[in-house]
């Protein structure tokens, strides 16, 4: 029986799942709000950066029922999202785990090697720490997008009383566009994340629920690509994964 390591602290696991609920509700209600005016142009103007200007989001993807209902959800759940995000970021900072996510020199090179591996241009899984370079980039980008979402959200919530926040994004129209774009990017990263969990490392689900992780089944140990070596036993010549801190 391979030894298990404690991979995720309970604060990380709790904030992860609270975040899932908060992001789903925020995105759903946000898209419902967007559908009241599914465009970025002011009346009588044009907006060249949105090829689907005027096209609403399909209703089944939205939440809140109608504009006012969605606004109530959006302005209630935003507090859950912000508080949860602060707990997570505060924990990362105090517990030193920001080191697992902070960009370093060499990340671009390592990310390129991961891409080559996934494209079969490289035989062996690159060596990695807790996360591979692509994962690390995604997990770093998500909280950054979260901060952009909160700031651009404040900018369109209070464009007069907090106009200095709106000015960070030029004006109301652009703040609204940035808010939407950041939401779309965050959802894209989340979808890729879920796809990779299912197709490359379903064993990590255990680590985000109970915290325990079996390093013998890590993608590095299995030399796993999406849907490749999903159930493989670790190879004898598999490079040993770097030590993780035990619980």
């Amino acid at each position, binding site marked *: 029986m391979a030894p298990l390591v404690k991979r995720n602290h309970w604060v990380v696991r709790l904030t992860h799942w609270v975040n899932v609920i908060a992001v789903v509700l925020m995105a759903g209600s946000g898209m419902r709000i967007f559908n009241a*005016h599914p465009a970025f142009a002011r*009346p009588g103007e044009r907006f060249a950066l949105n090829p689907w200007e005027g096209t609403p989001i399909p209703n089944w993807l939205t*939440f809140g029922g109608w504009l*006012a209902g969605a606004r109530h959800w959006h302005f209630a759940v935003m507090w859950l999202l912000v508080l949860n995000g602060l707990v997570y970021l505060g924990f990362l900072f105090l517990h030193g785990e920001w080191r697992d996510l902070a960009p370093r020199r060499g990340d671009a090179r390592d990310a390129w090697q991961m891409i080559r591996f996934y494209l079969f241009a490289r035989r062996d899984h690159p060596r990695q720490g807790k996360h591979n370079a692509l994962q690390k980039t995604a997990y770093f980008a998500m909280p950054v997008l979260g901060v952009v979402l909160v700031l651009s959200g404040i900018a369109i919530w209070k464009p007069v009383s907090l106009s200095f926040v709106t000015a960070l994004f030029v004006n109301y*129209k652009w703040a609204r566009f940035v808010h939407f774009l950041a939401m779309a990017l965050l959802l894209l990263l989340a979808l890729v994340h879920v796809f990779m969990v299912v197709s490359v490392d379903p064993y990590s689900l255990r680590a985000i629920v109970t915290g325990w992780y079996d390093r013998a089944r890590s993608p590095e140990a299995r030399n796993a690509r999406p849907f490749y070596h999903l159930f493989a036993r670790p190879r004898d010549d598999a490079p040993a994964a770097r030590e993780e801190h035990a619980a």
Partner: protein
Amino acid sequence: MTIDRRRFITLSAASIASGLVAACGKNPESAKPVLALAERFNETIERGLVRHSAMNVVPASAPLTGRAYPKYFVSARVPVWDPAVRGAWTLEVGGAVRRPLTLSLEDLTKLPRVTQKVDHFCVEGWNARATWSGVRVSELARLAGATADAQYVDFAGFDKEYHESWDMESAMHPQTLVAYGMDGYLLTPAHGAPARVHSPIKLGYKNTKYLTRVIFMPARNGGYWSDQGYEWMGAT
């Protein structure tokens, strides 16, 4: 059938997930008290954010929305004040005041005039720009002698029973006008003639058009859209 720990966890997760999905589809009634609580909390914050020094500034070079400016009313047709039926239009300023006023349009135009190019923020998400001319609501409050009981203001008009009540702080903001001019001309019926409320510090639905009454009150009394579920505060 025995249920081991792993199976128990799987089943629990599945039932919680299906419960959540079912709850989301119905937009549950049980969420209402929580949402109402959040709205009251947000309102406290929003009222704290109202500053008379926080002004909406539109760049001088920004184009006016002009003909594309959305027209909006709740009646089936454009409300038009017909003097032959209703007599001459007047604006009543009353309620918690020492000197109730009844102002004709001419009286209004003789009061200190403010002309400002500002944003109009619609709850739907768009914003439009126009140059509004009119009298500050704070000026009307001063002329009528609003008393200490004047904690809220109700703006009512002749577009059906349309009205929206405001907190006094927002009504007294220097950019909150009873406007009778738009882009250099008198208001047209499509934009709320003869006079309307206009302020960039509240969402469009709080800015009553086709205005007839400005009533100062000790308590708020909701509004046309506020009563249907939109936030009463509607602040920007």
